[in-house]
């Protein structure tokens, strides 16, 4: 009953702050009332109960890694249930958050990518303030990963960095030699001779980023936009499939439906571990990103901090890293990393992440509306 009160007072708070209309507030109360009668709590969401927390991530091998090496031991130790959800891309997930009632209220923790997403969530008011004293393991996290987040939330944190990776280039090494791939660099995605054997993630940022590299521009400061659209239109004719999830990416490469694609470094490492002839290429200015566990407003902070601290426990973070094939956010100068982690793509032994190019949050967020729509049209051949 305490949770119900908390949720209703949260909705009331939103209403009083003008974030929720009177009509929506009344609607919320009636729906909550009806659901209490039907299910014993607003929306019957067990994620709202004190002894459970919802965690949304990228599905496939990433979710499996979390389940096996983080959540199972956590649930055993604390009795707190972790309810898992999955998403395929960041924009769709943000829409789900917005569509929840009250917005964000049905979600707790999200495994988000890139600082621009952190900025979007903060901009939309979904952030919370983490009590860092309750997460002692945060001291082991690379400062290079917490700094950009703190810059957005006035020195505080609404998320803890968890891992980092790259969207690089994957190629079938039986069909394309390493030397050939390295010579082509980003141009491999626009190579005429590979027509019908090229794939790429159907996400606008990734493709505009690589079109920028192909046209010799800085992805964080594109000057010749026409050249970008021209390159992407040329690429559209060569692309066999714009994939939409990590699982699909792996299946396309494993079944040789495509020979080359933009690819998430961890998924490529997973394919390599499975014995597939897949090479990984990270040309200069490869699209790098850091991932973090974002705590959405309204989440039970005590439960969240407990889980976050457990996730940053070196034993757990390393096990998840080995399984999902993304290096952890832990500073290798503070925590000794096993060889398996050191060999992962995007691993930085210095812990400073110098030379990694991340998407500038302000730049990319300001372009979203215009570029995402344009990209959708180009992708479908307009």
């Amino acid at each position, binding site marked *: 009953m305490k949770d119900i009160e908390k949720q209703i007072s949260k909705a009331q708070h939103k209403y009083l702050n003008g974030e929720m209309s009177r009509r929506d507030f009344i609607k919320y109360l009636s729906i909550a009332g009806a659901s209490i009668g039907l299910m014993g709590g607003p929306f019957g969401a067990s994620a709202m109960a004190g002894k459970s927390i919802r965690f949304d991530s990228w599905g496939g091998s990433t979710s499996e890694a979390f389940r096996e090496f983080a959540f199972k031991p956590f649930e055993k130790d604390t009795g707190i249930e972790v309810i898992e959800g999955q998403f395929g*891309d960041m*924009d*769709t997930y*943000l*829409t*789900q958050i*917005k569509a929840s009632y009250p917005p964000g209220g049905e979600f707790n923790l999200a495994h988000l990518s890139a600082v621009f997403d952190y900025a979007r969530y903060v901009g*939309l008011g979904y952030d919370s303030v983490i009590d860092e004293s309750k997460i002692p393991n945060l001291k082991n996290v690379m400062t290079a990963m917490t700094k950009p987040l703190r810059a957005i939330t006035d020195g505080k944190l609404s998320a803890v960095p968890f891992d980092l990776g790259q969207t690089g280039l994957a190629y079938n090494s039986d069909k394309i030699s390493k030397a050939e791939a390295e010579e082509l660099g980003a141009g491999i995605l626009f190579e005429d001779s590979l027509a*019908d054997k090229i794939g790429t993630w*159907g996400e606008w940022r990734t493709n505009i980023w690589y079109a920028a590299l192909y046209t010799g521009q800085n992805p964080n400061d594109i000057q010749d936009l026409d050249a970008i659209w021209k390159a992407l239109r040329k690429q*559209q004719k060569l*692309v*066999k*499939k*714009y994939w*939409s999830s990590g699982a699909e990416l792996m*299946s396309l490469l*494993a*079944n*040789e*439906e495509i020979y080359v694609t933009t690819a998430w470094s961890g998924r490529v490492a997973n394919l390599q571990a499975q014995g597939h002839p897949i090479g990984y290429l990270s040309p200069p200015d490869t699209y790098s990103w850091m991932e973090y566990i974002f705590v959405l407003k309204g989440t039970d902070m005590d439960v969240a901090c407990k889980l976050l601290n457990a996730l940053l426990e070196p034993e757990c973070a390393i096990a998840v890293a080995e399984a999902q094939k993304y290096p952890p956010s832990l500073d290798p100068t503070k925590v000794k990393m096993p060889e398996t982690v050191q060999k992962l793509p995007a691993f930085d032994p210095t812990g400073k992440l110098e030379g990694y190019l991340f998407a500038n949050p302000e730049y990319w967020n300001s372009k979203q*509306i215009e570029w*995402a*729509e344009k990209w*959708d*049209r180009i*992708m*479908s*051949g*307009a």
Partner: protein
Amino acid sequence: MTARTRKKSSLKYLLPAIPLCVFTLCFFLFPILLMVKYSLHHSLPYGEIERIFTLENYINFFTDIYYIKVLIKSFLLGLAVSVVTIPLGYIVAYALWQSRGLKRKILYICILFPLFTNLVVRLYGWRIILSPAGPISNFLQKTGLAEESVNMLFTWPTIVLGLFSECAPYYILILFSVLTLINPRYIDAAFDLGATRLEAFFKVIWPLSLSGVISGGLIVYIWAFGAFATPTILGNAKHWTLAVHAERQILSLRDWPYGSAFGIIILLFTLLIVFLQTKLLKRKQIYREI
């Protein structure tokens, strides 16, 4: 029977329909009305909705050649799937109608069995079968019919094939139920009057089964016109139908009013087809003939 008793008795028959009416009202009509409402609002740059009355979403749609092309593409896809499913499905439905005993049971199982599996699972099954590393490609290579692996995925024929496999069972079952209504004495009479098997089919069976062909064909068309999963899984961005674009507008581009307008446009076109079909059936007086 007095008027009062008649009224009472008809109310008694209406009672069982109440749950269905409530369900339709709550989970079909109400969401559609909500969509209509959303589609008449304006979307702000970051996905917020400005609750003003505007027709801009519909105007934008019908003045944007890109979406007109998508609409035509969806229409043609519906047509292609219908053209493939209607004759092929007829053959199977006819065979099912003509069969008896074990043969009919086997045919039934073959038609119904795919429906026991989830649609997405079935579509991924096609992905495996048609992939370059799949059994068809392997067979073609082994028999020397293809020199290298063959990728049949992400093409229009593959999408039509996927939709055919989805719609065919429903079409066959609808048509079969109509075929079973045909009085066998009509066919016997045709033979008695000297008709050949072909003549009996075209002059008796075909006209009497036409209502099933049209109703089943309509289901197939509507299904393919509003297809979402198949073009997404078996196709590529260039194969996206209006339904996929509606999803993109709502989920990826976060333009709910525009996405809702897409949904309403799909619904209106579907209703238009249903209207035309009803007109066609009435004109041909097909129901009366049966």
